[in-house]
């Protein structure tokens, strides 16, 4: 029993530590004007988020956050910085008050809603009693796949995943249609650079 208590206490201490790191980083991102620093900090923000997700036993979510949030979106945002200036414009004095009010209101509502949530790992919570329990019971006989997350994602909810795949595909298509294929504009820039070099 004491071991359990110790484990729980240390888990909540690490959780509080990670969440306070997130808070500090959020404030820092809001204050910074250098876009490169902002992108880097948001990548680290995602990484700390991923660590916290793993702490609360959401391993798949944590993995996705680390791969997509810290890896992919940082790389894409770095590519986007190249197309624009390096620093954000300084804001007008009182332009921040409106967004601040919206943030505080939304945050207060979220904190108010948190009090209704079941405790983490509560066996009586809706997530653990309803369809989730059924999946755990019938999964092995139905599919023979040991990882329930995989069988739910690819088999029970194959339609959802087809939709998700299409969303990713359409997102890529939309960017390509808006910005061009990359190879053509790359060739054009290379040609322009070569011309400039020839005529100093």
């Amino acid at each position, binding site marked *: 029993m004491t071991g359990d208590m110790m484990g729980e206490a240390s888990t909540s201490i690490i959780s509080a530590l990670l969440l306070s790191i997130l808070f500090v980083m959020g404030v820092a991102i809001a204050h910074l004007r250098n876009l490169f620093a902002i992108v880097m900090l948001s990548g680290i923000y995602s990484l700390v988020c991923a660590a916290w997700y793993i702490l609360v036993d959401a391993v798949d979510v944590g993995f*996705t956050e680390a791969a997509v949030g810290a*890896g992919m979106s940082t790389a894409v945002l770095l*590519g986007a910085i190249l197309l624009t200036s390096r620093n954000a414009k300084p804001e007008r004095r009182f332009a921040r008050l409106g967004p601040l009010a919206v943030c505080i209101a939304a945050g207060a509502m979220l904190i108010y809603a948190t009090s209704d949530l079941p405790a983490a790992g509560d066996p009586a919570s809706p997530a653990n009693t309803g369809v989730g329990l059924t999946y755990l019971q019938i999964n092995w*006989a139905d599919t023979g*796949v040991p990882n329930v997350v995989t069988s739910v994602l690819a088999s029970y909810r194959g339609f959802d995943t087809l939709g998700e795949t*299409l969303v990713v*595909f359409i997102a*890529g298509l939309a*960017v390509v249609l808006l910005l061009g294929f990359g*190879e053509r504009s790359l060739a054009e820039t290379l040609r322009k650079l070569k011309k400039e070099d020839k005529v100093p």
Partner: protein
Amino acid sequence: MKSDHHLILRVIAKTLLPLITIYAFYVQFHGEVSAGGAFQAGVVLAVAVILYALIFGLAEAMRAVPPWFARGLAAAGVLIYGGVGVWAMVQGGQYLEYQALFNEPPGGHNGQHTGIILVEIGVLFAVAGAMVSIFYALAGRVAEIRDEDW
């Protein structure tokens, strides 16, 4: 061409890139028993290409993984996913009903395993191709990332 003062970065990236790629395939084919799956594997695979582009230059990366290949990969992934559904329909089942792939009775798992593996390969292709295409479209507008850009 230019002084190469990114030597350490390049050498370390060269050793890391194969590991990242293998890790992507590990995540892909180990998804059945551990955390992760095709979406994460696709992103990791795309990040390997993007890292290559960031360090060795976009033109080099486009020679290794041409943009038409990335686009085609994304489209092929969606087609594979949809094709599994059509296969199930041809066998007399419903769309994406893996149990019907080999007309097995309930309890047979070959269809489920085959269907899930094919579908995940489709997701891997679609995600990796789309992500690399997005990066190429964004980064292709500037010829080279110069040092003073950072």
